[in-house]
């Protein structure tokens, strides 16, 4: 039995999941929240983005279940000796990937789907030194000649695509069963979700899911015997690194906004509510904070934290635990240096709200300041908090890359998109060019950030009615012929 280890960010990610569930429960029972979220659910682009985000979230959560495997007892150990655990942390994602070539490192660079190394090496063959591209240790294991590689890739790839198609078919069947209540025949149930009768765009969501399933299964099948996206300078699989980076991105994107909530909420609401001297002091605090160039403030805090971590090496049982604490503190630093924007928004909104009748009435009834702020003001500024949280996410994921490039980001041993880019920035100028590292970071980041942006726009539209007017629409008005099956085709962007 391995021991489970809960790192700081793990605890955060799990409690965030719990909070999401609680919020979903609450939103389902509140009329206003349900209306707003169902407007998000009726936006096709947002729901497609949500499918992609869910897939990323699954990767991140799987990667957050950490444990230290039990080591086999040494040969001469006593029967009652305490169990010994490995000094290396593993996650559920590692186990899932351990069957493939993904987690097995090569010596150095190799191109995607290659069976030979990218660089030449001198090998001793029959006692004679031969200069050639050596075979990879963990790729193309049953391939004897280079000419058979194409056939093997095709075979594996087709198998993976077949599995993906099966998965998407299963999803379609599940959707049909799900819609069976409202229809008499299976065909009607199928048509119900295909046409999106209930307003929820099931068809685009299903198409997104199918594409994801095809890509994931295809890559997974190829990954059994190949490095799908090649390997980097130290021979680590690039796809594996990209998958591990997803968790870092989630942690930075969510934990930072959560960290900025307490100061922003407390200072913002009390500045707006009390006005006068309290407002002056709070405004002074955030003007001072914003006037310091952000990167420099973060750099100062990170350098400080580094000194602390270096001076206290005994606090961490594994390297991962140390790297994780650094990630956790980095998020806190980003949050504590970045709350002023949200604080300003909350202050302005509270200034408006405090003059409304219901707050006046509460004050006339003698309700205490604290209670007014908590019961009457806080719930009514929560939509701003929500919009800020989803809007900030993508920006923070991008910011992490910049910080890691500057050397004040995550620990070098933590996988992140920033450290991938940082390690790969010189590779484009090599000849022949090594493009797969940057490509992988680019594609994964673009997928994550783009879907987060699209989803955030829909959330903003739903909770901020002013934003809805300006969204571009592409309306193709199809004259509804009496027997035409499609009722209306309205594609929206973002």
């Amino acid at each position, binding site marked *: 039995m391995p021991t489970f280890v809960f790192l700081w960010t793990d605890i955060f990610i799990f409690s965030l999941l719990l909070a999401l569930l609680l919020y979903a429960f609450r939103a389902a029972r509140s009329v206003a929240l349900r209306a707003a979220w169902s407007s998000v659910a009726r936006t096709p682009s947002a729901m497609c983005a949500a499918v992609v985000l869910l897939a990323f979230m699954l990767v991140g959560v799987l990667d957050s279940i950490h444990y230290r495997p039990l080591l086999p007892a040494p040969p001469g150990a006593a029967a009652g000796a305490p169990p010994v655990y490995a000094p290396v942390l593993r996650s559920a994602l590692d186990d899932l990937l351990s069957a493939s070539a993904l987690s097995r490192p090569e010596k150095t660079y190799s191109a995607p789907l290659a069976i030979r190394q990218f660089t030449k090496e001198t090998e001793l063959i029959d006692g004679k030194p031969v200069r050639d591209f050596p075979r990879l240790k963990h790729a193309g294991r049953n391939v004897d000649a280079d000419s058979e590689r194409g056939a093997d890739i095709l075979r594996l790839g087709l198998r993976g695509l077949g599995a993906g198609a099966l998965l998407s078919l299963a999803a379609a069947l599940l959707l049909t069963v799900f819609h069976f209540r409202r229809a008499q025949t299976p065909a009607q149930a199928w048509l119900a979700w295909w046409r999106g009768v209930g307003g929820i765009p099931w068809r685009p969501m299903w198409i997104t899911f199918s594409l994801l399933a095809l890509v994931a299964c295809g890559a997974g099948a190829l990954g059994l015997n190949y490095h799908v996206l090649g390997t980097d300078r130290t021979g680590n699989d690039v796809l594996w690194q990209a998958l591990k980076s997803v968790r870092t991105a989630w942690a930075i994107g969510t934990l930072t906004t959560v960290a900025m909530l307490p100061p922003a909420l407390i200072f913002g609401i009390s500045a707006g509510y009390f006005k006068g001297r309290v407002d002056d002091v709070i405004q*002074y*605090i955030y*003007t*001072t904070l*914003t*006037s*310091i*160039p952000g*990167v*420099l*403030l973060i*750099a*100062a*805090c990170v*350098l*400080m934290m580094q*000194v*602390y971590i270096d001076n206290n090496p005994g606090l961490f049982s594994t390297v991962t635990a140390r790297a994780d604490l650094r990630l956790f503190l980095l998020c806190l630093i980003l949050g504590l240096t970045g709350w002023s924007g949200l604080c300003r928004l909350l202050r302005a909104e509270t200034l408006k709200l405090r003059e409304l009748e219901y707050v006046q009435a509460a004050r006339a009834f003698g309700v205490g300041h604290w209670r007014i702020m908590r019961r009457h003001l806080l719930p009514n500024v929560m939509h701003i908090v929500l919009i800020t949280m989803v809007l900030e996410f*993508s920006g923070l994921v*991008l910011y992490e*890359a*910049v910080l890691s*490039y*500057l*050397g*004040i980001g995550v620990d070098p041993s933590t996988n992140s*998109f920033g450290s991938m*880019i940082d390690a790969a*920035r010189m590779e*484009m*100028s090599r000849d022949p*060019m090594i493009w797969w590292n*940057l490509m992988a970071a*680019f594609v994964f*980041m*673009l997928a994550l*950030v*783009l879907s987060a*942006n*699209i989803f955030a*726009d829909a959330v903003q539209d739903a909770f901020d009615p002013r*934003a809805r*007017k*300006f969204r*571009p*629409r*592409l*309306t193709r008005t199809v004259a509804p012929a009496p027997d035409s099956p499609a009722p209306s085709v309205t594609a929206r*962007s*973002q």
Partner: protein
Amino acid sequence: MTRYILRRLLYGVLVLLGVNLLTFVLFFAVNTPDDMARLSIGGQRVSQTAIEKWKAERGYDKPLFFNTEAQGKAAWTDTIFYDRSVPLLRFDFGFSDEGRDIGHEISKRMGPSLALAIPTFVLGLAVCVVFALLLVFFKGTPLDFSGVVICVVLLSISGLFYIIAGQWLFAKALRWVPYSGFIDGWGSLRFLALPVLVGILSRMGGEARFYRTLFLEEMGKDYVRTARAKGLSERIVLFRHVLRNALLPILTGTVSAIPLLFMGSLISESFFGIPGLGSYTIDAINAQDFSIVRAMVFLGSALYIVGLILADISYTLADPRIRFE
């Protein structure tokens, strides 16, 4: 007006004092001079005498805030905090931990920084406004739709990728511009073309979308309806009425960013090897030279405050309805 500006300036000095105190606490109270000396000399086993010598050379051997050994006023003035803060308020940055004059370095590096920042700022603003206007002009058509989609995609790409891809495409594949570098005078145009282009592209997504919203908001106002009711063509409504009215808030909004142009751009400068203030800051961060970092923090905050005051003034100049009490 003068009184208002004076009051804002005093407030700015107050903020600068706060910044100074905050950075001092960040840099010295947590990271003691002993740590700095050890870091700068290098290695864990540094003799205490070497540390004392390093500290004495740089004036770090005094107490942090309060000198118990000194008498009277000197108890406050004969400290590291006083030594390091008061000259900063006079914009005398002192010497870096390596022994170079920071003020001289800053004045030397300002030129290259501005040579990159000003074209990026001006051209970027123009390109974003024009692109947003284009989207508004074709509102409701596939052009508007695809334009916004392009904006969202541009917004979702990390700035680092623009730089790396730009260097690869224009410097390596096409060989139009050099990879990186900088020379004084007009010859630097060759070097600056790519950084400016990358800078414009990486800010276009977000800004063009934002300006599009501003223009659309302006389009919903009554005077636009009146102009249309008079029978003016959509083109004239857009360019003569909407553009003028919407451009004012855009310009006044960007005024606050102008002083910060002096600080240069951290990422661009270090990627393109431009010897400006941005790369100076990065080098200081990497070398953990706290004197330079503190000087840059102070300069940045001072410029930010100047930007705030300039923005306030430009609001009154642009819109006579706004008055200051």
